[in-house]
């Protein structure tokens, strides 16, 4: 480290960094993107492997015989569901009791902050029914959960049928060492949230639920089953949970291992694995799969009923049966055997799943990218912010070509600098707070004055406040006493750049995908914005790369990845619904993406907008 102790060489290094700052930044950005794209390339990724020894060798023999009977039960369930027009509570209780389970129910109700137009619900009232298979070998200390949603319409009847069939079969086995909870939840995630909050006796979202009567100790793992047809072609594994949390990779490995063993076609993100990794189409397929995972994770919403378990440190995944037009079909017995195998392996667990990775991306079901491989991509982009900060710091400390009286000048300029930094910081954060609180608060007023529905009112208010924030620089300067100085914007930018670096770094640690997408769009803006660039063009670029527009592009990109491209009007409607869903996710399940964007990212972006219009 003689490099730093030697003032000459230190100076040389700093000179190099400041002189070549722009090229280095560009190179870092390119390298970051290239690294990220390289993650999907199969030779660069690792094969998945089972880390947990207790689940290692495939010693269990699956014998579930009663798939057909399960489907009959499913049809019975469908008939009773139709008759009851909702959850057939009494029938479920009776059926589960007849199978020798301890059956309990939980009722819950929840008024949404504004109507959910996607699922057409506002006041939600329902009942969860769950039966506990008591393990003969354990004193109610550990449990596993198998859940199936009681969905409106005719979907997921087969899932409930199979759940009941498995319950009956599991009940006659002696080897269970963990209680198994068979849960049929109503109103999908809201019911699941009520049940989990009831089970753990917490209340984070202000929902009304009746306390649970029976429990099975600490839940070790959970599987959520979604099945809407008698036969399926493939099973899809869904991992992304609330706030981008993922279950331990061993759970995915377990699913993959049993699919291989039993011979069921399995997919992730609905994408089949391809073997031609060396061809362009094979690579782009892997990229698509990985990008789908990145987009879903970045959204921070639970993508299946399992998503809410992760908050309670319960490893959980959803398994969805997909029936497409392929020839090869799998019947319910085989799916039942697969679940039986997975549960028997989970039953063998001695400890919680902890051996394998919690942070990963999956370009295919058999390959994964661990945190050690994907973090450099983010790091390369985030280092740009540090380089710019260094550059600004050097500029601030050593004013270029000044004589002795230059020192006096700096002191004079620095004192208004503090205020000029603080004012925009405070004002932009107040705008963020407004963006966070006002849309829901003012929905009634908006509905009274404008011909819109409540949901539209909330979304449009949010967009209006977001846009109003763009007028901020002018308002800020009215408050400021003096003129903005050269030093002033530098100090402000230094603060903003460091703020962004910390913000993105923390986000990427918790939810890599969200952090990376934000870094991809915000870092170029942060790096090159000054008051001296062409105003109109830069303003346009700045708006294009703002968080809201990023979301808009993401919506289109996501549809493209799903191979369901939309035209602009549809995309716009989708965009509006995504915003409303984001706000709902926050208030219903405690998703953190909306507050993060509104309270931190958007104010940070406003600071750069402020710098552009610095006078």
């Amino acid at each position, binding site marked *: *480290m003689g490099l730093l102790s030697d003032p000459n060489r230190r100076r040389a290094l700093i000179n190099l960094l400041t002189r070549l700052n722009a090229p280095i930044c560009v190179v870092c950005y390119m390298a970051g993107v290239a690294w990220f794209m390289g993650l999907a390339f199969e030779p660069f990724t690792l094969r998945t492997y089972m880390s947990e020894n207790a689940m290692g060798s495939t010693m269990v023999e699956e014998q579930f015989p009663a798939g057909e009977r399960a489907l009959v039960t499913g049809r019975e369930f469908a008939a009773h569901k139709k008759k009851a027009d909702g959850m057939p509570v009494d029938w479920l209780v009776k059926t589960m009791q007849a199978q*020798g389970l*301890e059956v309990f129910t939980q009722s819950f109700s929840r008024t949404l902050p504004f109507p959910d137009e996607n699922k057409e619900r506002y006041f939600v009232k329902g009942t969860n029914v769950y039966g506990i298979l008591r393990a*003969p*070998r354990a004193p109610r200390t550990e449990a596993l959960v198998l859940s199936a949603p009681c969905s409106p319409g005719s979907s997921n009847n087969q899932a409930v049928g199979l759940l009941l069939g498995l319950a009956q079969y599991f009940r*006659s*086995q002696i080897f269970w060492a963990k209680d198994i909870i068979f849960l049929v939840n109503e109103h999908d995630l809201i019911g699941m949230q009520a049940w989990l909050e009831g089970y*753990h006796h917490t209340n984070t979202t202000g929902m009304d639920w009746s306390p649970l009567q029976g429990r099975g100790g600490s839940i070790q793992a959970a599987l959520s089953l979604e099945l809407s047809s008698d036969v399926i072609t493939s099973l899809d594994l869904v991992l992304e949970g609330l706030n981008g949390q993922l279950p331990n990779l061993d759970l995915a490995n377990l699913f993959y291992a049993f699919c291989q063993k039993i011979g069921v076609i399995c997919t992730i993100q609905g994408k089949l694995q391809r073997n031609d990794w060396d061809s362009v189409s094979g690579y782009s397929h892997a990229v698509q799969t990985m990008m789908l995972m990145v987009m879903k994770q970045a959204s921070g919403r639970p993508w299946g009923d399992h998503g809410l378990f992760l908050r309670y440190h319960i490893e959980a995944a959803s398994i969805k049966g997909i029936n497409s037009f392929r020839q090869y079909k799998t019947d319910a017995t085989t799916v039942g055997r697969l679940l039986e195998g997975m549960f028997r392996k989970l039953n063998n667990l001695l400890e919680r799943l902890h051996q394998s990775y919690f942070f990963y991306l999956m370009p295919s079901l058999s390959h994964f990218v661990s945190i050690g491989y994907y973090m450099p991509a983010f790091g390369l982009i985030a280092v740009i912010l540090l380089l710019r900060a260094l550059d600004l710091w050097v500029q601030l400390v050593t004013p270029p070509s000044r004589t002795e009286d230059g020192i006096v000048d700096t002191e004079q300029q620095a004192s208004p600098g503090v205020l000029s930094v603080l004012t925009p910081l405070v004002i932009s954060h107040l705008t963020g707070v407004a963006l966070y609180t006002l849309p829901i608060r003012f929905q009634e007023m908006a509905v009274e004055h404008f011909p819109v529905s409540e949901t539209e009112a909330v979304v449009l208010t949010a967009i209006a406040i977001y846009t109003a924030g763009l007028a901020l620089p002018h308002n800020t300067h009215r408050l400021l006493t003096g003129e903005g100085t050269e030093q002033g914007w530098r100090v402000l930018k230094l603060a903003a750049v460091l703020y962004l670096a910390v913000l993105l770094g923390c986000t990427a640690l918790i939810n890599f995908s969200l952090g990376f997408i934000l870094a991809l769009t915000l870092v170029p803006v942060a790096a090159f914005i000054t008051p001296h660039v062409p105003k109109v063009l830069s303003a346009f670029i700045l708006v294009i790369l703002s968080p809201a527009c990023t979301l808009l592009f993401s919506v289109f990109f996501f549809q493209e990845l799903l191979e369901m491209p939309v035209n602009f009007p549809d995309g716009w409607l989708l965009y509006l619904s995504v915003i409303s869903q984001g706000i709902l996710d926050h208030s219903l399940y405690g998703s953190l993406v909306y507050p993060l964007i509104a309270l931190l990212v958007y104010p940070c972006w406003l600071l750069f907008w402020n710098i552009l219009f610095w006078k």
Partner: protein
Amino acid sequence: MAAYRCSYSAVLLILCICSVSTAIDSEETTLTGAHHVGEVDNTQTATETGEQTTEQPVVEERRWEAIDVEEATPGDSDIDEKDTSAPETIVPLTVPQLKDDFQEELVIRPLHSGDIYASFQFRTLWETDFMKGNKVSHYRLFPKSLGQVISKFSVQELHISFTQGYWRTMQWGQPFLPSPPGAELWVWFQDSVTDVDGMWKELTNVLSGIFCASLNFIDSTNTVQPSASFKPLGISNVTDHRFLRYATLPREIVCTENLTPWKKLLPCGSKAGLAVLLKSEKLFHSSFHSEAVHIRPVCQDLLCKTTSWELRQTLNVVFDLHTSGQGKREWSLFKMFSRTLTEACPLASSSKIYIDITDNPQWEQFELSPATPLLSQALVLGDRRTFSVYDLTQQITFGTVRSLNLLIRWKSNEGDMLRPLLHAERYVAGYGLQTGEIHTLMYNNHPYRSFPVLLLDSVPWYLRLYIHTLTVTSKGKHNKPSYIHYQPSKDRVRPHLLEMLIQLPPNSVTEVTVQFERALLKWTEYTPDPNHGFYVGSSVISSLVPSIAAMDTNSTLERPLFSSFFPCKEESSYFVRIYTEPLLVNLPTPDFSMPYNVICLTCTVVAVGYGSLYNLLTRSFQIEEPSPGLAKRIANVIRKVRGVPPL
């Protein structure tokens, strides 16, 4: 503090009264004919009232017999048994005047859920004195290994149980003998012992060897001295809880290796008598299994002039309808134990099988074959139960095939859920690895009577209880415990001990909550499987529960009018101890591959960071003179030669 003492003595008083009052309820009547139920009841009540008067004077002396009944050994007071129809089965009215005596019995109770509950009890009585350095060397029925333990460690009372599974009170009702999951050990030492802790430590190690169990893991961090919950069950003058030690090991797994030494303590081993049924492959193919050993001094006769030592070995097992019974509501000895009975233990003075037929007076629920003419009644856990009795000492019991295979076949398929008067559950609330909350729920299902319960919680030190957050609520209102004994934990030395006397209002749920913080252990203190979690033992709830028989106000039909006006004091309440489920709590656990990473990282940091800092701090900076030109250097050399100072 005085108030607490008052209520404390009140508790003791209540416990005392209870045990005395239950004494009188242990009479039994045996009658012919399973179908003469009306007659049975009439005669029974008549004898009951008669016997009450005769037994009043000896209430004090019969106290320990009474506790037997509390613990629900229905056939325990066989000595009083009267037989009107079968004169050949008369049992002597007094205890045989042998030095030692062995009795065995099996109680089978078909449960409403379709499961079946079998409870074995083996009792060895020995009129001897282990105390005061009395050297006992000749053993007959009493196992020598335990006798030596009693005399060496000056044990007053010893209770040990090993349990697998959890007793499901809601489905099965109360067990005859409750036990918590895992291992439980509680011992009263004699008041002559000076170093109780040292004795306790040695005793656990010895017992660990005798029962092949990990009792040696009992140390000061999981041992408590309950002040009120565990009182001596035998005759004793020691009530100072300094001589009591109580510990549970909720993680202990019970297996055949514990059963084999337990069976070896029996006089007949598993060679003859009821013990031939104890085959481990069947016993452990069940949903509940519990084996226990209880040693205590009891009165030898009614006047209690001499004491004898009682060794009671019990084994409770519940077979599951769906796993063991293949879903068919049909049970036989062979189906349960894969053995039938051919003889009683030749050393046993009494050997009987009782089948609980209370809910089945007209044989409409299930049928029993072979039928038996013997009936017996007993007050079990506050409820009057009727039993069919099979006496194995009589050859006629085994019939012509010379083997007894009891068969219980259910006729109806449904059974209503039981509604026990008192049950409890416990769970950990909250999420995250920093704090949590322990919730204990106690249900009083009695329609109109409230009763007090003693709650004992022993929580390991690594869950740091915030005792100021302790709340007790019933029916939404704060319920102030009348007695609280709390001993805070000491890190790595002793656990928290919390004992409370709480009044449970009728028909209510009482919730006790207390918050805790999860401690970060030292890295050597973690178990080999830290991600499994750490166990917190069951809470113990001891209570005097109002009797079901006394609660039954509609049963005037079965009673003569003179007996039913005032609620019967003797039957008014009975003692029950229930255990909640143990808890599994996750503590913040480091990644144990971390030490390697830490070593690598620290080495790098030290090498790079500290090295350069050290370099900066210790290097002396000097202003380097520009080196002189060549001409000057030559001139200097010349000047040096000349002896002139250089330029």
